[in-house]
């Protein structure tokens, strides 16, 4: 496939909604559940993952001609692990304040199967630009899912929204932080069972929206044929 015939709109739509890492592909649920105790954590993990995803997609796409099918998996894993380690060290050195908030999650990105998944299913078959767009769209779709789940759990569990966002993004973002007065939060939502419950409801919600969209589509098709 050449870059010229690529439908970028389709790639972006797939990444954000149709093939969303979490809501459609059900990948990367482990980091998803682990870090989404607050919207801020979700955002930080999502952005770091997006950065690695874009870099991994670009690199894999660049070397796709020389990598043989038999050894592609170890090659990709070495690439991804190297990228994550470089991001980890660079953040520790030059963005030390951010690293103190996110440091724990960075190493987790290696085991995020979504990254290997995109290398395998997209970057190895597509051009560099298309792969970069795909990585960005998939990453942002993942970030969206992380932030959404984080916000739901944080709101129900702690009664806050984007708590400590200014620690991650800088003091200018302190306006994001919301605290519900007089609500202490339901602890269950912060603990692992809350992650499963909240994710279940979000998945059901996406199913409902998809079904409504499909019904509207078929109704329109029926009108068109009539």
């Amino acid at each position: 496939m050449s870059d010229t015939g690529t439908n970028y709109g389709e790639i972006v739509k797939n990444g954000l909604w149709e093939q969303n890492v979490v809501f459609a592909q059900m990948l990367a649920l482990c980091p998803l559940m682990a870090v989404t105790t607050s919207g801020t954590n979700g955002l930080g993990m999502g952005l770091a993952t997006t950065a690695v995803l874009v870099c991994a997609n670009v690199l894999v796409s660049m070397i796709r001609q020389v990598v043989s099918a038999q050894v592609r998996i170890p090659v990709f894993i070495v690439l991804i692990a190297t990228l994550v380690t470089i991001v980890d060290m660079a953040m520790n050195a030059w963005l030390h304040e951010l690293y103190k908030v996110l440091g724990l999650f960075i190493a987790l990105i290696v085991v995020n199967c979504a990254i290997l998944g995109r290398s395998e299913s997209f970057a190895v078959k597509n051009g560099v630009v298309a792969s970069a767009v795909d990585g960005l769209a998939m990453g942002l779709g993942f970030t969206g899912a992380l932030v959404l789940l984080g916000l739901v759990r944080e709101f129900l569990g702690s009664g806050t929204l984007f708590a400590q966002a200014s620690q991650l993004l800088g003091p200018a973002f302190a306006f994001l932080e919301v605290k519900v007065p007089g609500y202490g939060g339901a602890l269950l939502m912060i603990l692992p069972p809350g992650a499963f419950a909240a994710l279940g409801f979000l998945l059901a919600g996406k199913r409902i929206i998809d079904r409504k969209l499909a019904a509207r589509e078929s109704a329109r098709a029926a009108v068109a044929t009539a």
Partner: protein
Amino acid sequence: MNLDAIREKIGYQPLLLGVVALLASGALAVVSDATGPAIAAAEAKDLRDSLSEVLPVGLADNDFLKDTVEVQKDGKPLTIYRARHGSEMKAVLFKVAERGYAGDIQVLMAVDMDGRTLGVRVLKHTETPGLGDKIEIKKDDWVLDFNGKSLGEPTPEKWGVKKDNGVFDQFAGATITPRAVVKAVKGGLEFFAAHRADITG
């Protein structure tokens, strides 16, 4: 011979893996080399910042990161930082750890020469977010309750959380975490009392 045919050769696979591994290690070595000094500097700054946080402003004028002594605690060497003003020793700083609800809680404490705590900070913990993390100074000022406490004040049996008839607050839904911190600080004070000569000498 074109690329497709070369790619299928048996010798090509290990060669490719080897080259990729070599390039990856090379890249990591370069990045590690480039970031090493910056990371070491950032970590030293972190240590200095956290040590300074438990030490009242103006108490010491020496570089206490350099004025250290190692004393055995539970069979392991513990680094003790000594804060001096002029030649007079004012306080010592060291880390203690105690098992909390979910893993070790690392506590940094400063003790003055009379055996009173000057400050306590939790450096690292894996307690439940939203419950146990109130031991962090960022989330709650609970940890400031330790300031000025010594082994005699409160009395040893009052060194506990209120649930255990002690003087320290527990948090709603989390007793094990504050209990562990109280135990850690008390252990630190006892360690200082027992090894005072080694530490100041």
